[in-house]
């Protein structure tokens, strides 16, 4: 039974694998296969996640009264401060809407968010992917943006029925259209594979960009909503021998420290929710 038959089998397996990989890499035909198989794997990921949740639950239940009171105090102060800011924001929003209606602009900022928990992170140290515990059942779709309280985290690349996989902005295959908040300069932030930096490509040497500049999403490309913080410039290196400056950015989102993330549904221009539209911000 063995001998030539094993050889035939391994050659077949190799061929099928190569075909699968090519199909998976070039087009999104295999999304349904991936989704179906992810249902099989989901219980495993859930089981691995269980002790971590139990640990968090126990820690929560064992925290002392003093700690709770202190936390409560802190939250009250935070709430007051945020409330004050919200009040000014409400007037600003009303004013903004009025001005936009005067300008007859169609930009809307209707957004819906959903909190998702991390099930697992990619075991490959060079790609930055995470698995979330929300899937198509909760309305998650491929291409959806992912943020935390500090800034943009990434986007969903495949959604299974119960879980979904997301690509972080630090993944080498991720590109994100951004804008320098101070000057409005547009750029594309690509991941470097390192967990704490992304780099800006094709910034001219004479461009007005400095260390400390805040970058926000530009909303171009249609994948990400406009105006979310992305990160701060940590290094600008201008070499007159090179055509472009070397700009490094530290992401503001806490990419490696989060357990909860926010999924965003946003309704911008009509084309944005069309799933067949593949803008530049997608995985290459």
């Amino acid at each position, binding site marked *: 039974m063995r001998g030539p038959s094993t050889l035939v089998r391994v050659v077949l397996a190799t061929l099928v*694998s190569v075909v*699968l990989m090519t199909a998976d890499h070039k087009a999104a035909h295999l999304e349904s296969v991936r989704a179906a198989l992810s249902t099989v794997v989901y219980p495993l990921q859930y*089981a691995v996640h269980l002790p971590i949740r139990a640990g968090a639950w126990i820690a929560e239940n064992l925290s002392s009264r003093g700690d709770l009171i202190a936390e409560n105090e802190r939250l009250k102060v935070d709430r007051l401060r945020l409330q004050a800011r919200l009040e000014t924001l409400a007037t600003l929003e009303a004013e903004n809407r009025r001005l936009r209606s005067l300008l007859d602009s169609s930009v809307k900022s209707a957004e819906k968010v959903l909190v998702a928990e991390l099930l697992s992170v990619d075991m490959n*140290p*060079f790609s930055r992917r995470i698995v979330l515990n929300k899937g198509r059942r909760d309305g998650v779709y491929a291409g959806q943006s992912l943020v935390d309280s500090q800034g943009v985290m990434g986007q969903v*690349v495949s959604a299974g029925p119960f879980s979904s996989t997301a690509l972080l902005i630090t993944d080498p295959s991720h590109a994100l259209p951004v804008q320098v908040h101070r000057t409005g300069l547009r750029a594309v932030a690509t991941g470097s*594979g390192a967990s704490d930096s992304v780099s800006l490509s094709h910034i001219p040497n004479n461009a007005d960009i400095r260390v400390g500049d805040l970058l926000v999403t530009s909303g171009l490309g249609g994948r990400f909503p406009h105006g979310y913080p992305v990160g701060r410039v940590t290094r600008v290196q201008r070499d007159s021998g090179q055509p472009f400056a070397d700009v490094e950015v530290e992401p503001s989102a806490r990419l490696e420290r989060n357990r909860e993330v926010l999924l965003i549904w946003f309704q911008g221009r009509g084309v944005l929710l069309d799933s067949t539209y593949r803008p530049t911000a997608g995985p290459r």
Partner: protein
Amino acid sequence: MSAGAGARGGLVIAASFVVALMLTALPMPEWASMWRPAWVALVLIYWCMAVPARTGVLVGWSVGLLVDVMSGTLLGQHALALAVTAFVVHQVHRRVRVLPVWQQGATVFGLVFLFEALVLWIDGIKGMPVTLTAYLGAPLVSMLLWPWVFVVLRDARRRFRVS
């Protein structure tokens, strides 16, 4: 071998792969991710060596597909690597099986290196950066873990008489 014993053996093998997949999905700190042992490859190597008639290329390929879905890599990437690993184990298992466990470890280093190299080559083709520690970390740790994996799986095999 009765049909009941056969089914039970299949269950034991499947359960060991489930545990390996769970260990693979276990969250680890950033610095340790480079040194994560290739659990699934270790389990596959053991079963291919112990009961080559039951586990082989097809089992490796199917489990690899699950690893691909779980880790979000290209469908077929780990499947290909595990299928080739199973094939190589089939070629050498008669020579390796008689060696003492620590000498088997050296072979396991080579096999896991082959597995990691295949996965990383495909990453490289996709344009991802790869370093030397990525090639050597997992094989080293897997080699050191092999005696324990071997003993645990051998005991399981003997207790449930998987053949």
